């Protein structure tokens, strides 16, 4: 009886259904929390990258209140822009080495100088590629320009210690692939910004 194919199929089906029901239950139960966490995380990063002052221990309600008070969302062509006091933040996302990387690039009101960069979703290797989320890495972008010395738009992530130009930052040792992908997605965002803003100004 236990060795028969029918029994095996029935057993597998029942086990599969029970496991699926269990997971559906847990997923439904935690869904509102997970969604709220993801939304709050995005807001926190927009506030952070634009330099809006807020405490890291702020409750979710307080965070939403600060966000709605200080940030306005505008649409330029295909580009969704978050504006605070003249400075803008634009989202970028693309595949990194291990998974999807999402973040924001913020520019000062001159649309040339970087105010900040943040990565709010990434699955890179902790300690290596994961360091793109670390403060030492993202802080390097502050006050850099999105144009090179030759006037061409784009930033470069160079091998550790080699950054010398105003559009270069130091890369992460042991995470060359992540750095290359990040550089490509940042330049994609910069290209879009230049198209929407700078060319009209010049």
């Amino acid at each position: 009886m236990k060795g028969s194919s029918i029994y095996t199929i029935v057993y597998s089906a029942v086990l599969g259904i029970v496991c699926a029901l269990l997971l559906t239950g847990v997923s439904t139960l935690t869904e509102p929390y997970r969604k709220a966490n993801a939304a709050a995380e995005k807001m926190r990063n927009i506030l952070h990258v634009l330099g809006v002052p807020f405490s890291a221990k702020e409750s979710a309600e307080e965070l939403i209140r600060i966000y709605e008070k200080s940030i306005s969302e505008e649409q330029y062509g295909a580009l969704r822009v978050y504006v605070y006091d003249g400075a803008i933040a634009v989202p970028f996302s693309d595949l990194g080495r291990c998974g999807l990387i999402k973040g924001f690039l913020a520019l000062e009101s001159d649309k040339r100088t970087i105010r900040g960069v943040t990565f709010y979703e990434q699955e890179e290797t902790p300690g290596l590629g994961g360091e793109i989320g670390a403060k030492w890495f993202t802080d390097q972008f502050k006050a850099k320009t999105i144009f090179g010395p030759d006037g061409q738009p784009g930033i470069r992530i160079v091998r550790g210690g080699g950054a010398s130009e105003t559009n270069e930052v130091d890369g992460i040792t042991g995470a060359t692939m992540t750095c290359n992908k990040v550089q490509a997605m940042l330049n994609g965002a910069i290209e879009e910004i230049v198209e929407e803003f700078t060319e009209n100004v010049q």
Partner: protein
Amino acid sequence: MFNSATTLPGGACGPGLCGGRCKQTLKDGMWANNPISIQILGICSALAVTNKLENSLVMGAALIFVCAMSNLLVSLLRNATPRRVRMIAEVAMIATFVIIFDQFLKAYYWDMSRSLGPYVPLIITNCIVLGRAEAFALQNPPILSIVDGAANGLGYAAVLAIIGFFRELIGSGEVLGRTVLADNWYTGNQVMIMAPGAFLALGFLIAFANFIKPPQTEKTK
């Protein structure tokens, strides 16, 4: 004689719930047969998440939960599971508990879930969990299986905590994110945060464990 054990599922349990084998099982998993330092299993995640003590502790908790619960379920179903599909069935049960823990982290402990990244879902492929299900839970009653799963989880958690403590301390001069070795005279040793540091720390730990209790193969010579 008072004997409540007979009413428990898997009535093979004798006096003291598991035939007096509880203590031995616990000791085996945590020390004598520690999954990492003796069996050298599950070191992938042990190397990957131990650059901070906090990460190590949560990862240890995850393994205790998953290993104990999957052992319990595998043991409860051990007489009903057809041998042909037992591996797939075990992995399905393990995956269920891993995803439950992952969802729980995502809901209530968001920051930690983000910093552990893919390593919580990867517990599904951790050889300690499947190893205990195959080697222990399939032959033993449920209560004893929980003890065995928890003991192995604890053994894993203890090793992770020790490695995490030293890597964080030497690598960044911090313990649980609080600065212990002041910046003005201590420079963090970057190599301990990066992958080679994990190998170094694990190597020293296994060497130390073997120093205290030499491997049995050498003893019998």
